[in-house]
């Protein structure tokens, strides 16, 4: 093909043979062509090695020296034009997206003006009124424009910018041209034209919630695989929601960076509203336009956002009864209804003490349903959404894992230790609440996990309280025994009493002093909010406070508290077991001659997992438990006191006051330390 083309070329003679005046005329003619981007015979463009190179030119050697110099002065203009033209050719059309296309078309218009100017030069030439010097002079006003365009296009091509990136680059350059009015005006108009398609996509998103972005330029990406209505409601999880619309940070124009989050959420909310079958009628404002200081578009975006957020809140509150939902969740997870939870405990108690692998979820499920329908919970319209779950880890492990998420090793340790632990049904048990779209927007998995943690803590405490109550009943019977036998139990009585005191106060503290007041504050706040984000953040705040005040967030505190509760549980089991044995022995007394008295049964305690030494007598066991209890409780009180000093807004000190209302433990600790000091001294002495 090259050969064929060459045949069309006219062989030209070197220009040196021609008089200087004619040389100038010929050069001028050719220069006008070269200015329009064509390659000449005497002024030749050198080949490019890559698309973003600056083009070099050369002039015929034989030309008169001063003319040569004159022509060389035009070379930068030619180079600029070359790169602008290359940008125009490659970026207009569909390959580089709409923003580039719009920018190219704006640059095309500027180039068009420049070409008209070249035409004017041509007419001057035809009238023989043009010289190289005059052409140079006349071109001057265009040089600045061309230079500016050169700079812009080159940087865009170097960066291979597309979509939002183009706008970022343009914005950056417009900002930098602050001092130069003319330049800034030019850049401003370019940015405006380039931003136009972007605004259109943005408006579709913030006013209708749809992404119409065939060239992947917009900051929000829609990963719509299947349409929403084909999915079952369970698939509308928040996880799905997170994944459906993703933010592409690299495509955000720098001037929209502060608004990114709002923009993303506006469209998301509109989609939620639409999926709830509501009409979306956002406040229509004028078309958005790029401005240097963000005047206009910022306001419009904020308006759209507040519309979307408020409407969604309205939908959630009115049509989906969010407040009712919240109340319902609180009802179950914060043990709001005593009759329900006690009923449930008495139904499921036997099932829950089993090993978790032996617990039948379907049996629990039907018992839960029974408890729901035969208690005051029956009045709750959302009661069918309550379910239960058997988790594979207990509360402490979960909490520790969450808190130590930063350190990788600890997490590995946590996983490791988990395998060995065999959980009881009680430890693994938790309520579960099925929330449907779009309420799941508020009740995310994370939120539900928080609720579950609080619930599990409370549930265990409640269960142990219940257990200790049964111990109390059994003690009532023991009291009727004759004097020496009943004496056996005195220590156990005292310990039971202290444990009951502890558990009840703990429960009272968490429910009455933490959960309920925080809940009241939360409800007050939630009545006043005006968008969904506030609901979500207020809700999270509530949970955080509750978790912190319920001593869940401090691992050491939680572990101590859990240990205490577990100890109470072990004690209760121990006593109940003893009582059962005693009863059996009593009944067997008449028939079995070997067992002579009740005391013998008490002296030989049966093998129990919570007691290290099987051979220990009843009294010894009780004494050891008492010691453990006192140490742990002292430890707990000590920690609470420390915590109370550290933070000013904590209620935990009230628990301290309540547990140690008559300074019993303080004195005990003092005695204890004195004693140990004495022993230390005696040892050292």
């Amino acid at each position: 093909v090259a050969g064929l083309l060459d045949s069309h070329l006219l062989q030209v003679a070197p220009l040196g043979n021609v008089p200087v005046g004619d040389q100038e005329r010929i050069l001028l003619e050719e220069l006008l062509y070269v200015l329009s981007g064509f390659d000449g015979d005497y002024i030749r463009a050198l080949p490019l090695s890559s698309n973003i190179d600056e083009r070099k030119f050369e002039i015929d050697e034989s030309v008169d020296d001063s003319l040569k110099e004159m022509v060389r002065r035009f070379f930068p203009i030619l180079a600029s034009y070359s790169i602008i033209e290359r940008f125009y050719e490659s970026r207009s059309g569909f390959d580089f997206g709409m923003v580039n296309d719009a920018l190219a078309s704006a640059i095309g218009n500027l180039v068009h003006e420049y070409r008209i100017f070249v035409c004017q030069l041509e007419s001057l030439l035809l009238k023989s009124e043009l010289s190289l010097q005059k052409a140079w002079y006349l071109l001057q006003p265009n040089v600045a424009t061309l230079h500016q365009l050169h700079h812009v296009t080159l940087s865009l091509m170097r960066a291979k910018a597309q979509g939002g990136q183009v706008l970022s680059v343009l914005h950056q350059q417009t900002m930098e041209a602050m001092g130069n009015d003319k330049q800034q005006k030019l850049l401003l108009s370019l940015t405006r034209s380039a931003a136009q398609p972007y605004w259109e996509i943005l408006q579709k998103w913030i006013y209708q919630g749809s992404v119409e972005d065939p060239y992947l330029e917009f900051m929000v990406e829609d990963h719509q695989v299947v349409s929403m209505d084909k999915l079952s409601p369970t698939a509308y999880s928040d996880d799905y929601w997170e994944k459906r619309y993703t933010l592409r940070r690299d495509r955000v124009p720098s001037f929209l960076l502060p608004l990114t989050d709002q923009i993303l959420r506006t469209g998301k909310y509109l989609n939620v509203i639409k999926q709830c079958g509501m009409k979306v009628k956002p406040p229509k404002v004028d078309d958005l336009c790029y401005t240097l200081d963000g005047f206009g578009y910022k306001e419009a975006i904020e308006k759209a956002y507040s519309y979307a957020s408020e409407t969604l809140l309205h939908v959630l509150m009115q049509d989906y009864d969010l407040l009712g939902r919240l109340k319902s969740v609180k009802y179950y997870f914060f043990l709001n209804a005593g009759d329900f939870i006690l009923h449930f405990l008495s139904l499921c108690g036997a099932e829950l003490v089993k090993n978790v692998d032996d617990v039948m979820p379907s049996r629990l499920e039907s018992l839960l349903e029974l408890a729901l329908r035969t208690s005051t919970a029956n009045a709750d319209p959302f009661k069918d959404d309550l379910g239960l779950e058997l988790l594979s880890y207990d509360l402490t492990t979960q909490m520790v894992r969450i808190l130590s998420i930063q350190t990788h090793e600890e997490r590995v340790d946590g996983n490791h230790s988990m395998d060995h632990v065999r959980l009881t049904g009680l430890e693994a048990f938790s309520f579960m609440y099925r929330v449907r779209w779009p309420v799941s927007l508020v009740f995310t998995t994370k939120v539900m996990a928080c609720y579950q943690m609080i619930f599990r803590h409370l549930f265990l405490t409640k269960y142990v309280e219940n257990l200790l109550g049964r111990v109390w009943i059994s003690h009532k019977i023991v009291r009727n025994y004759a004097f020496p036998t009943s004496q056996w139990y005195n220590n156990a009585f005292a310990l039971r009493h202290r444990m009951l005191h502890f558990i009840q106060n703990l429960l009272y503290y968490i429910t009455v002093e933490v959960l309920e007041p925080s809940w009241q504050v939360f409800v007050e706040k939630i009545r006043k909010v005006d968008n969904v984000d506030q609901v979500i953040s207020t809700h999270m705040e509530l949970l955080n406070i509750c978790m912190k005040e319920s001593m869940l967030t401090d691992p050491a505190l939680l572990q101590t508290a859990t240990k205490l509760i577990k100890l109470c549980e072990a004690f209760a089991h121990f006593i109940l077991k003893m009582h059962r044995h005693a009863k059996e022995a009593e009944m067997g007394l008449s028939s079995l001659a070997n067992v002579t008295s009740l005391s013998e049964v008490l002296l030989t305690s049966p093998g129990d997992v919570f007691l290290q030494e099987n051979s220990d007598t009843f009294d010894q066991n009780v004494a050891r438990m008492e010691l453990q209890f006192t140490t742990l409780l002292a430890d707990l009180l000590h920690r609470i006191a420390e915590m109370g000093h550290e933070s000013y807004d904590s209620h935990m000190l009230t628990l301290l006051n309540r547990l140690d209302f008559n300074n019993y433990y303080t004195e005990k600790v003092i005695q204890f330390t004195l004693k140990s000091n004495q022993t230390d001294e005696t040892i050292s002495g």
Partner: protein
Amino acid sequence: MQCFSDSVMKIIRKRKPSHSDVSNHILLREILYAFQGIQGQVFQWDATHENLQLKSTVKLPKALRQMVLSLVELGWLFHKVQKYCESPKTESTCGLAARAFAAALQEELSKSIHKLTVHTTRSGDTVGVEAQGLTFQRLLVWTKEPKARMKLLAALVEACHGQRGGALASVIHSFVLQGNATLKTVVLKILVQVCRPLYEMLMLWTFEGELRDPYGEFFIGVNLAVDPGSLWNDKYYERSAMVPNFFTQEQGHQVATTGKSICFLREICLDKSPIPGLNQIRRTAEERSESLLSLDWESIEEAYGTASQYLLQVLLDRYHIKLHLCALRQYLLLGQGDFVNHLMKLVEPELDKPATTRMSRLLASILDKCIRCTNSQYDDADVLKRLDVRISEPSQGDSGWDVFSLDYKVDGPLGTILTPEVKTRYETLFYALWRSKRMEWIMSKLRHQQLTEGRQLRGLLEVQGVLHQAQLLLSEMIHFAQEMSHYLSFEVVACAWEQLSIALRSSKTMDQLLTAHEHFLQTVTSRALLDEESKDIRDHLRGIHEAMLQFSQIQERLFSSAILEVEKRQGKSKSTIETFLPSIKAKLCAISASYQNFVQTFLFMLSSHSDPNLQGLGVRLDFNECYQRKDSRLSMSLT
């Protein structure tokens, strides 16, 4: 050939610019012709590349040659567009939209020809080029805009090749999304023109239910071979490829449903009256929208709502859909207790006989009798008229129980909801429910026998052991049969029916109604263990039922023989107790064992079933962990 540089040479020589030399002038004129794809002295048509090429004799300086080639590119683009415009006119099958597209392109072409003509006349014939101000540079400036436009048209032509109807509109619409504002308006203009026929079709379909689409371009197709009963489901279908991409799926669906609703009203409900309010909506829609692009979706949505609502109203008020659905539940799904029990009592003697086709009439009269003496007599006359007995084709050895079912005759709009396929499903459900009911019935009869005839056997000490065994087994069976029956009627049918009634009340369109009904059937089918997943469980349930039937025969034999024995003893005849008792005992043991086995496997399968309701059933059947203690599989942990 004289050329630019020659003239320059002349200038150099004579210092006289422009004149006498016409080569530049000719070149310019040739270029103007070349713009329209016409070849001449300088350019020739290259058929292989479909392009204009410079003749090899023409010699030009480098810069000029580049410029000329760049200018002539317009001619090539022009030719390409023109070729497309001319091709579809000859074929009538390519559709209205494609023809509209060609017309729109033609319009654009003429516009550019017009512009060029202005330039041509300006260049004149013999007048000096420079005097008229036409130079290559100026031509380049003038052609900038037309060239960009022509480039776009050429790209459109390329992309739209072979496309038609809605698909064509979609392709053109993909060009709307571009940054260049002027070109965007051009595309929009063309698109509006292309969509005009589609717009007319859409309006006609949406508001009249009429499909006027001679070339199959619209996104709704019709299947004429379909019988009227399945008009709603099968007659009209959506051609997804033809839905313009600026419609959402839902919008397309709304349009399709609106027209279909009107068709359904006209053809199936025979309701020719205009749908109230629809004309008003049409007027507003026409006022507000000019083309398919600016279609007023609010009006369409309103039309969709109105048509659907009206159709539903007609179905509910005139055709009493709810009443018939209720009747199906009452009779086919055994919701009406007194009727079912009475029917069971009346048909039992007949159905115990081997099945024949002739029993149909007798059974129909029994049904009639049954209706008259139960509360069903107060039911709607229309419902009772439709209720009938169905005897399916009996095969060898079938008893009446295997072929008997109730039938509900439907016609007209009802036939759309209760298609033959749906009716078959109802029939399957009836068999299952009827069977379970029959088991309960038999079990209570056996209990009755044990209580009444058992008294006569008090004196017969030898049979007391067997009798006790039978009582134990029967208790188990009664528990099972009653729980099953209770589960089916309350947890399955009643719960699903509750959901269906809620859905019926809230449904606004025919489709919602159909989906709700479908959901109802599906729930009932899967929970009644009639779906694919539960095939194995179903077999075990059948085994249990078989065991019950066998047990019933054995007990019959036991009692008849035992009573005979008592009579014999009273009459001092020879005792025959040794002849029947051991065999009955053995059989009873065998049945008891196989029954236990079946139940345990059944429970085990239930506990691993995916449906929590069925798991719950398992828990209830084994409420006191009686089976769990017997079978280690059941107490095995699930985790």
